[in-house]
C-alpha cells in the first residue's frame, strides 16, 4: 500500500515535470553583460544580452556594488539607455572606482546571474559624434576660395572646464570617389579646405575622440555641391613662375652664347690627355704596337753599332794636368766647381754615357789628391756588386780619402753623366739597357783602347759589353788608367783628348786592354785583352811605348820589345789585375 503511494507520488511529480518540460519552460539562461560606455566621464550606461528566457516571462535585474563598499545597489534607470540597459546618472557615477556589476535574469523557474563585470568609468569613455556639422563655401576677394566646415563638440562633454579633452577627425570625398581625404584637428571646431574640384558634390563626415578613450561613431554625412565656376587654382602665381623661369632660361642661353666655350671650360675643364714624349696616340689606335714602341724609343737607344761608332768618335780623354774640360755648355753646377759632364740627351753626340773617361780624367785633374794613395779595392766581388754605381767608383773611391770623390758624387744627383748615388734606373733613358758599370767599362775600355791601340796594325777596338761580368775587366782597366794617371807626373804621359772623329777608331771592334804592370821607372805596360774567341791566346804584346800623339790628342802606343821579354819572364801569363802597391 505504502509502496503504492510513494511510487504514485513519484510518478505524478515526474509527470508534472514532464509536462512542464514539454511546455518548454525553464529557468532563464545566464544573461551576458556586453559593454558599458561613458559619453562624457560623468555618466555611463551598461548593456547586456539576455539569454533565452526559458519560455516564461523573465525579469532582468542589474545589481552592483562599488569598490570598497559592501552595499549592493540596483540599477537606478533601466529606461534611458534603451532595452536591456542600465543608465547611471551623475550622482551614481564615480570615477576611479571599480564597479562590480551583475545582471540577473529571473523567471518563474529560477534565477540566472551573469558573470560580474568590473568597470572603471575612466577607461570606458566614448563620446558622441560632433554635432551641428555645417558646410559653407567661402569666396574672399583677395584670397583663394575654400570650403569652411564648422561643428560643435558632442553632447554631454564638458570641454570648457577642461574636464573632457577632445580631438576631431574630418573626412571628405567627392561623391563618386572611393578614398576619403582625412584631416585631424586637435581641439578646434572648424576647418578650411582649399583644393576642391569644381562641379563635384562633396560628402563630409566627422568624429571625435577623448584624450584617453574610444573614437566616436562617424557623424551622418553632410554634402555640398561645388559650383562649376568655382576657381580652383590661383593661376596668376603659376603665370608668374612660368615667366620667371623663361627669363632665366633666356639669360642662361645668352650667357652661353656669348661666353661660349670659355664658360664651358670654366665649368667643365677638359681632361688633360696623357703626354708622353714620342707617344703617338694615333699609332695606338691603329694598333701598331711596334711602331708605337719604336716611337717611344729614343733614336739613340738601344745602342747599336752606330752608337758604338759614336761612342768611339766622341771619347774624350782629358789631359790630367790640364784643367781643360769639355767645352760643352754645362747647365749644372757642382759644388766643387767642376763642371759636370752633361749627358746630352738631345744630340747624337754620344758623349753622355761615354763621358766616363772625361770624368775619370777629371778625377785625374787633381793629381795632388791621389798620387799614390791608390790601392787595391777590396775585392773583385765588389765589381759584381749590382749597385753599379759603385763599380765606377772603385778606383776613385779608394783615393777619396780627402773626399775628392764627392765631385763624382756631387755630379750624381744633378749631373746626368754618372748619377752615382742614384740607382742605374734613373740613368739616361738612352742607355737604360745598360747599367752604369757597363757604360763605365765601355767608356773606360774605349778610352783605354783609344789611348793604347792606335797603332794601325795592332788596334783592338773596344767591345761594347753588355754584361756585368766584364766589370772585372772594367775595374782592371780603371785601375790601369788610374795608374796611368798617377804615374803621369813622372811619366809625363799625356792622355790625349780625342775630340774629333778619327778614322782610326771608327768601325773597329772594341776590346779591353789589360794593364800588365807598371815598370820600375813608371812605365805603363798595357796588354790587349785576350780575345777568347780566338782560342789560344795570342802572344802577349806589351804596349808600353808611346809612339806618337796624334793631332786629335790620341796617344798611340807600340809594343816595347825591351820590356816585353822581361815581363814575359817575370810574370808569365798574368792576366789578372795585378796587386798594386
Amino acid at each position, binding site marked *: 500500500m505504502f509502496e503504492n503511494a510513494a511510487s504514485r507520488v513519484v510518478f505524478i511529480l515526474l509527470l508534472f515535470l514532464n509536462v512542464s518540460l514539454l511546455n518548454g519552460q525553464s529557468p532563464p539562461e545566464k544573461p551576458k553583460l556586453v559593454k558599458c560606455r561613458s559619453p562624457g566621464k560623468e555618466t555611463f550606461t551598461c548593456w547586456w544580452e539576455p539569454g533565452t528566457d526559458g519560455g516564461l516571462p523573465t525579469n532582468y535585474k542589474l545589481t552592483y556594488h562599488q569598490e570598497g563598499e559592501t552595499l549592493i545597489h540596483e540599477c537606478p534607470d533601466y529606461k534611458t539607455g534603451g532595452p536591456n540597459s542600465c543608465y547611471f546618472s*551623475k550622482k551614481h557615477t564615480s570615477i*576611479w572606482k571599480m564597479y562590480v556589476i551583475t545582471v540577473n535574469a529571473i523567471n518563474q523557474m529560477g534565477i540566472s546571474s551573469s558573470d560580474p563585470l568590473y568597470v572603471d568609468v575612466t577607461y570606458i569613455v566614448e563620446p558622441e559624434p560632433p554635432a551641428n556639422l555645417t558646410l559653407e563655401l567661402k569666396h574672399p576677394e583677395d584670397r583663394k576660395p575654400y570650403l569652411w566646415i564648422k561643428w560643435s563638440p558632442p553632447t554631454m562633454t564638458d570641454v570648457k*572646464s577642461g574636464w573632457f579633452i577632445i580631438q576631431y577627425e574630418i573626412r571628405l570625398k567627392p561623391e563618386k570617389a572611393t578614398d576619403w581625404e582625412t584631416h585631424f584637428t586637435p581641439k578646434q571646431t572648424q576647418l578650411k579646405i582649399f583644393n576642391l574640384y569644381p562641379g563635384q558634390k562633396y560628402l563630409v563626415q566627422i568624429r571625435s575622440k577623448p584624450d584617453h578613450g574610444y573614437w566616436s561613431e562617424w557623424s551622418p554625412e553632410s554634402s555640398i555641391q561645388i559650383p562649376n565656376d568655382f576657381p580652383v587654382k590661383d593661376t596668376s602665381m603659376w603665370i608668374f613662375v612660368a615667366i620667371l623661369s623663361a627669363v632665366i632660361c633666356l639669360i642662361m642661353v645668352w650667357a652661353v652664347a656669348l661666353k661660349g666655350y670659355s664658360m664651358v671650360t670654366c665649368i667643365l675643364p677638359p681632361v688633360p690627355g696623357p703626354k708622353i714624349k714620342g707617344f703617338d696616340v694615333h699609332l695606338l689606335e691603329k694598333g701598331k704596337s711596334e711602331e708605337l714602341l719604336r716611337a717611344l724609343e729614343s733614336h739613340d737607344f738601344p745602342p747599336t753599332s752606330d752608337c758604338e761608332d759614336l761612342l768611339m768618335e766622341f771619347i774624350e780623354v782629358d789631359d790630367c794636368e790640364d784643367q781643360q774640360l769639355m767645352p760643352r755648355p754645362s747647365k749644372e753646377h757642382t759644388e766643387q766647381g767642376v763642371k759636370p759632364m752633361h749627358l746630352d740627351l738631345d744630340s747624337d753626340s754620344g758623349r753622355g754615357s761615354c763621358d766616363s773617361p772625361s770624368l775619370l780624367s777629371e778625377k785625374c785633374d787633381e793629381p795632388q789628391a791621389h798620387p799614390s794613395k791608390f790601392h787595391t779595392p777590396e775585392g773583385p766581388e765588389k765589381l759584381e756588386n749590382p749597385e753599379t754605381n759603385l763599380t765606377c767608383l772603385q778606383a776613385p773611391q779608394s783615393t777619396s780619402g780627402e773626399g775628392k770623390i764627392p765631385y763624382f758624387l756631387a755630379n750624381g744627383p744633378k749631373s746626368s753623366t754618372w748619377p752615382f748615388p742614384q740607382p742605374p734606373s734613373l740613368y739616361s733613358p738612352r742607355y737604360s739597357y745598360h747599367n752604369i758599370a757597363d757604360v763605365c767599362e765601355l767608356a773606360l775600355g774605349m778610352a783605354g783602347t783609344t789611348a793604347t791601340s792606335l797603332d794601325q796594325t795592332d788596334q783592338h777596338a773596344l767591345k761594347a759589353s753588355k754584361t756585368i761580368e766584364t766589370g772585372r775587366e772594367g775595374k782592371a782597366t780603371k785601375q790601369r788608367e788610374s795608374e796611368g794617371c798617377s804615374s803621369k807626373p813622372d811619366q809625363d804621359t799625356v792622355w790625349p783628348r780625342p775630340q774629333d772623329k778619327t778614322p782610326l777608331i771608327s768601325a773597329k771592334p772594341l776590346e779591353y786592354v789589360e794593364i800588365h804592370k807598371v815598370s820600375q821607372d813608371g812605365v805603363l805596360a798595357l796588354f790587349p785583352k785576350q780575345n777568347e774567341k780566338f782560342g789560344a791566346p795570342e802572344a802577349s804584346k806589351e804596349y808600353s811605348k808611346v809612339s806618337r800623339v796624334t793631332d786629335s790628342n790620341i796617344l798611340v802606343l807600340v809594343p816595347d820589345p825591351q820590356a816585353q821579354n822581361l815581363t814575359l819572364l817575370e810574370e808569365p801569363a798574368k792576366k789578372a789585375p795585378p796587386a798594386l802597391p
Partner: protein
Amino acid sequence: MDSKGSSQKAGSRLLLLLVVSNLLLCQGVVSTPVCPNGPGNCQVSLRDLFDRAVMVSHYIHDLSSEMFNEFDKRYAQGKGFITMALNSCHTSSLPTPEDKEQAQQTHHEVLMSLILGLLRSWNDPLYHLVTEVRGMKGAPDAILSRAIEIEEENKRLLEGMEMIFGQVIPGAKETEPYPVWSGLPSLQTKDEDARYSAFYNLLHCLRRDSSKIDTYLKLLNCRIIYNNNC
C-alpha cells in the same frame, strides 16, 4: 687735425646710431608674460609650465595603460587577478575628488598638493617596479622599457609640478605627508601567482593614479590659464 675731428664726429655718430637702433630693437622685443598671480620671478611662464606638465602627465598615463594591457594580456588571462586588485592601492588614503563636481569644487591649492602627494608617493614603487620587472623571467621589453620611461617621466613631472606650485601659490609649504608604499615583499615572493597578482595590483594602481594626475592637471590648466574657456 681736420681728419681727427672728422673721425671723432664719425665715431660719435656711429655710437648714436647704435644706441638708437638698440632702443628701437628693444622696443620690438616681446617680453615674457608676467605671472598671473602676482609679481614673482617667473623665468618660464606659467602657461609654458602647464603645457609641459600636461604633456608629460598625458604621456605617463598612455604608457601606464599600455603597460597594464601588456601585462594583462600576457600574465593575467583567466586568473581573476582583478578581484584581488580592489582596494589595493596605497594611495587610496589620499582624499582625491572622484567626479567632476567634486573636482571643480576643490581649490586649486588642494588639487595641486594632491598631485604632488601622488607623484611623490610613486617615486619609490616605480623604482622597485623597474628592478623587479627586470628580474622577472621572460620579462617582455614592452613592459620593462615602459616602466623605465615612466620612472623618468615621473621625476620630471614632479619637478615641473613643484615649479608650478611655487608660482601659483608662492610661499606655500610643501610638507604634506604622502602615502608610503609597502608592497615590495609581495613583489618578491616565491609564489609565482602571488607575485604576478602583486604586479597586477601595482600596474592597476599606477594606471589609475596617472589618470587622476592627468585629469587634475588638465582641469587646472583650463581653470588657471584659460579661465575655464578651453
